[in-house]
């Protein structure tokens, strides 16, 4: 019921969910049932790539929620993504068990390599999937809560906030690079074997992960849409446009910001957790400030403050990234840089904005014709 109500005025959202439904049915069939010789066959590599894009899209939606509807330009959102990824990585590491290079039943390889004697306390419990799944939401959520509580309460806004979010992810990156942290240092966590007992390299597992990503994106999108069309969402838009005014009217600006921020961080964590088993590795490079800024450009290119725009932007930029880095590696940074510049200069509302604008123009033209026709 709620879903109907929320999606009633969200035509692009319905389209998005419809497309997700179609590809979640079509891709498994084309991968598993259609023979490899057929031109319609989709290779497992492509399935994994698509799954990766979908997790990026979920991340982009979470960033758009914060930037587009709350006005916080976060330059550290990939930190939450990476944290979710690390939590998942820890679960997957524990699943390796005795199959590691050193064959230690309890300790992951890198700990044996560093000659650690026992599992650190923060690695306890990650052999249980339910615990890991809980932590995927909790760890980014708690970090976002603490950070947001401090930042919003003392009214750090605008550019300052952007810069300290960047400092946050930078500090996390430096920290995770340290071997002493107990997360595999420079190499990160890798060499995963299976998830929930299923072999990670099997086609069926890949398909399942792809489907999970699609479902997560759909749920994330709908939840975000529910939030932005609720009173909370309206209030956050008010804060984005006139923070002091909203405060004077009587809204608890800090609380509104905090909860939206925490929700968004959790969503990013889930995206990260789905990303890691598909790419098979998580390392501190995921925390690099560049990743967070790139994420912002996905949202900007798609169109901020629309949610579906973020999805489009993420898919588009990442597809072209895959294409360019393979075909013309030198061109990629030029292309990305040019995208940044051109989008901010000429497309402040992104691709979606362009389309909306032309639709509106079309409507005006039609209306004008109608009026003219009536006159004649």
């Amino acid at each position, binding site marked *: 019921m709620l879903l109907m109500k929320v999606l009633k005025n969200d035509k692009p959202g319905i389209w998005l969910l419809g497309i997700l439904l179609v590809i979640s049915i079509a891709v498994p069939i084309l991968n598993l049932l259609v023979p490899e010789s057929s031109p319609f066959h989709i290779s497992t590599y492509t399935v994994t790539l698509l799954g990766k894009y979908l997790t990026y899209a979920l991340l982009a939606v979470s960033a758009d929620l914060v930037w587009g509807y709350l006005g916080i330009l976060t330059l550290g959102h990939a930190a939450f993504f990476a944290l979710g990824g690390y939590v998942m990585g820890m679960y997957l590491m524990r699943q390796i068990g005795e199959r590691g290079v050193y064959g230690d039943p309890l300790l992951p390889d890198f700990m044996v390599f560093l000659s650690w004697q026992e599992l650190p306390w923060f690695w306890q419990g990650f052999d249980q999937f339910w615990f890991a799944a809980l932590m995927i939401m909790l760890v980014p959520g708690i970090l976002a809560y603490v950070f947001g509580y401090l930042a919003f309460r003392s009214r750090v806004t605008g550019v300052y906030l952007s810069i300290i979010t960047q400092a946050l992810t930078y500090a996390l990156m*430096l920290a995770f690079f340290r071997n002493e942290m107990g997360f595999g240092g420079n190499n990160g966590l890798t060499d995963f074997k299976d998830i929930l007992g299923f072999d990670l390299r099997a086609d069926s597992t890949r398909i399942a992960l792809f489907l999970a990503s699609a479902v997560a994106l759909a749920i994330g999108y709908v939840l975000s849409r529910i939030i932005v069309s609720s009173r909370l969402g309206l209030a956050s838009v008010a804060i984005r446009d006139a923070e002091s005014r909203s405060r004077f009217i009587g809204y608890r600006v800090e609380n509104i910001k905090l909860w939206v921020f925490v929700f968004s961080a959790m969503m990013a964590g889930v995206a990260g957790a789905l990303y890691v088993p598909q790419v098979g590795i998580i390392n501190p490079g995921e925390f690099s400030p560049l990743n967070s*800024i790139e994420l912002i450009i996905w949202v900007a290119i798609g169109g901020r403050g629309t949610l579906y725009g973020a999805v489009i932007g993420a898919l588009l930029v990442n597809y072209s990234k895959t294409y360019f880095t393979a075909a013309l590696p030198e061109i990629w940074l030029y292309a990305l*840089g040019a995208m940044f510049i051109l989008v901010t200069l000429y497309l402040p509302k992104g691709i979606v904005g362009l389309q909306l604008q032309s639709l509106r123009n079309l409507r005006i033209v039609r209306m004008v014709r109608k009026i003219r026709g009536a006159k004649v």
Partner: protein
Amino acid sequence: MSVSALTIPVKKTFSLLLFFFMSFFVLMSAAQQTLASEVSAEDSLADAWNALSKKNYTKKAKAIEVITQQNPSEARPALKAMLEGQLYYAKRGKALYFLKETDNSYVFTPLFDADSALEPIVQENRRGFRKVKVNNRLRSMIRQFLAVLQLTHEDANIRLSAVQELLKNPDADAAGLMENTVEKETDDRVVAAMRTLLAVIQLENGDEAAQQSAINTLADSLNTSAMNALMAYEAPTKALQNKAESAIQKINDKRDLYNKMETIFFGLSLGSVLALSAIGLAITFGVMGVINMAHGELMMIGAYTTYVIQLLMPDNIAMSILVAIPAAFIVSGLVGIAIERGVIRHLYGRPLETLLATFGVSLVLQQTVRSIFSPLNRSVETPEWMSGAWQINEVLALTWNRLYIIFFCLAVFAALIAVMKKTSLGLQVRAVSQNRTMARAMGVRSKWVDALTFGLGSGIAGLAGVALSLLTNVGPNLGQAYIIDSFMVVVFGGVGNLWGTLIAGMSLGVINKLLEPWAGAVLAKILVLIFIILFIQKRPKGLFPQRGRAAED
């Protein structure tokens, strides 16, 4: 009772007599020996040179001793070559040669030039020659002898290092040499080092009075060997023991003090780099409200300008840096003006969009540099007048390049303050930053001012790049490494406040370096970042916030 009283003196006299007799005997035999050695001086010297080609290390040791005492001028190069494994002897005839390796040939020059019978031999391999081998014991002995030999060298620095070499391994033989030379010594540093060495030796071998004065001398010294000597010292009396302990305490206190001073100096030099890279940002950010993510890349351009200028004038490295300073300013400034005219001009009043657009610019600049100069790191040669260190005392040495960077930072800062306070451009910049509309109404060409301000900030980034190129490798990622740090400095200091930026840069540098020995370099950096994140909560507008009307958004 009377008997016993008598016997003691008798015993004493007897033992005294015995002592005299024995010492006479010893002296006689010693004299005989010296006589004998003088007679055969020529022979034994030649024997000694020959002994070097023997396999017996004990004989070699004795030979080295003889050579050093009797033929110091030729001993020096020979010993040095031996130490470096470049002294060879011909298998036939056993004559000694120096080996000099070139790209594809081995040149053997005879040890004695006067020996006209032998000529330099050039061949493609080492056939027919054998190396004069040394073992570790011999090696340390040679080092010591070389040190003694160098005590009489004409260069004061070489004399000093010779004394320091002896200090590492002091022995009584050196003392005799030292007592003669210390009187003739003119250089203060060498005298001080020699006195320390003498004191170390006296502490071991002298009588109580000598030990006391030795402790006094050592207490003023900062040398590690002096410290070790005091630690190993076994005092005969309680008073001396106490004295030695307080001397150790005194040295330790002094060393701690100097070490702290050194840490603070390192911190200040790191801080200058931070401040230098942040000042340009403070101008564009503070005055124009523009967040320039390409700032790091403008620094990188400055560093590459230095590199290119050094390529253009390879014969004159010393001058190239001085040329690079204005060149980097101009190049980075022009690029900055181009960025302002091309991109930022369209985005005033939208700080977050500027951030994204300039980030795009930074990616493009990075890739451009990568395409032109290759992604590999380049290194800029440090000119001679910047290498080396200012040795204030044994513990405290300030490297010149760090010292120059502190001066450079202060000079740039002073120049910038002068521009902002004394020139009409500065006046207009301040006017525009405080109230753009009013400034325009008064006839200030705000667009022109914007372009020049941005150029100024970018030019200063270029200057920071020159400084960085001397500290680290020049590569396409140079800017990225510093951009977050410089943002931290600006935010910490308070936007739009040049003094705040300077103080913030310096204090962050010092905090970083103070934490480093305790927490390690990476953890120190993380702690500083966390500190800033927490600090911003307390004071959202930095250390020195803008006050009054200009502070309103």
